[in-house]
């Protein structure tokens, strides 16, 4: 207590001035700490660009408010596809994701991972695995794709669990020569990543990205014209 007090105060009581100063200090502290944590959360929240979420995951912004990082989805997966992000992974700490090139999703018909989620971060009611949108496959490197170079690799097409719907081989004439080009149909592709996992190149020429990265969208251009 400051020496501005003329009378000694009963023990345990606080002067109004001290009270206001204390309250202001705590409010300031809350704001400062909250601001720092928010900045960090924003940067962490912008990270999962590359992260493929388990099937049934709700939209990424909502996912970050829903997933409690319990790993029940991880335990439910019979293929050890899913991992919880650790420090240093480019994914919000503790949240589940998978790396298609390492272990893709094998598209269990009963979607055990989504059924196990207690929070609603994964839609436990998802009617079938074919409704999942973990991402969309993209033939990202035509130049190195062996089919494009005129060989009959077609491994991605063959391993796709939704063959001939999610990936078809389309005839194209390239440099005057006929070629079969693996072509992804985004309305059927679930983003399971089998194609990326099995691509025979050292670095996959077909890759799965989260939908908002993989896909463009029709809308209004910068000049405001509908396209």
């Amino acid at each position, binding site marked *: 207590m400051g020496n501005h007090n003329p009378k000694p105060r009963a023990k345990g009581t606080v002067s109004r001035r001290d009270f206001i100063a204390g309250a202001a200090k705590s409010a300031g502290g809350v704001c400062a*700490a909250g601001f720092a*944590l928010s900045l960090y959360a924003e940067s*962490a929240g912008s990270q999962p660009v590359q992260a493929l979420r388990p099937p049934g995951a709700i939209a990424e912004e909502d996912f970050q408010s829903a997933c409690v990082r319990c790993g029940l989805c991880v335990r439910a997966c019979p293929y050890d596809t899913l991992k*919880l992000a650790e420090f240093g992974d480019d994914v919000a700490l503790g949240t589940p994701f998978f790396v298609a090139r390492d272990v893709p999703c094998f598209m269990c018909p009963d979607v055990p991972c989504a059924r196990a989620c207690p929070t609603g971060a994964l839609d436990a009611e998802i009617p079938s695995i074919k409704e999942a949108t973990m991402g969309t496959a993209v033939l990202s490197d035509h130049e190195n794709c062996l089919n494009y170079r005129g060989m009959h690799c077609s491994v991605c097409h063959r391993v796709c669990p939704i063959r001939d719907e999610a990936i078809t081989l389309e005839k194209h004439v390239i440099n005057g020569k006929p070629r079969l080009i693996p072509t992804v149909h985004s309305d059927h592709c679930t983003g399971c990543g089998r194609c990326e996992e099995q691509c025979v190149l050292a670095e996959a020429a077909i890759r799965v990205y989260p939908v908002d990265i993989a896909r463009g969208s029709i809308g209004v251009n910068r000049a405001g014209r509908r396209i």
Partner: protein
Amino acid sequence: MKLIDLAGEPRRGAIRSKGWLKAHKYWLLRRTSQISLLLLFAIGPWLGLWFVQGNFASSRVLDSVPLSDPFILLQSAMAGHVMATAALIGALVVVLFYAFVGGRVYCSWVCPVNIVTDTAHWLREQLGITRDRKLNRNARLTILAAALGASMVTGTIAWELVNPVSVLQRGIIFGIGFGWALIAAIFLLDLCITRRGWCGHLCPVGAFYGLLGAKSVIRISARGRQGCENCGACLRACPEPHVIAPALKGNVPLVLSRDCTTCGGCIDACPSDVFSLATRFQIANHEGGCNGETKMHRQVSGDTALIQPK
């Protein structure tokens, strides 16, 4: 014969008067509880025995009973997510349990970070480190409010992006990665910079559970306080020493502060059996006479003035 004093120097007097085992009873029980809870989660992945799946954030016991951490769910609610029923039921079970037995029972009987910070404190005493940068004990409430605010503003479960409690629990159950550095940082904070720095001043999880159990039924009682010899062992053993003085010298011989972790350190350390577990309704038992009371009042308040943090 000199036995190793695993749980710390304050217990010397108690070891002399009631033997090593009784002077470490609650400490042994707590460590057993903390370690077996972790093992319960870990034997699933290690040995394929799935009594419990998940981790402390949310789990399924015997493939049926859900349990969820209410603090994480509260942040999730602030961030705007409406939880699915399983998680809500799980949180309700946990809330009821800790509201009854005392919120910070979580800290001393469940949380594995407590083992880390207790060890740091023990080593601090062994090495005679006395440096103590004073922190405000209410800083944890500030951080708690900040975590909830940040969850609301960013729409994420904000504290889970840094929470060392989750990092350690998940780490033991799922593999820790670089998270050990965070745990090492807390160990060093408690060892070199501030006495009981993390759990006693900063951790918002402990603060949350403290608020949750503020009116809990199970409490520590100083019902034998007329036998107190003012040795100060309880105050030195207690991770939140400011909670003890009111029970020793106040009107009600109960530790009623929500900061008490019900660790039983005071019961272990007291050479004259002043403390015991009780309910908040057992007040009048074994009350000392008026004489003892006034003497106690004088001596203990002088004693704690030195130790009680501001």
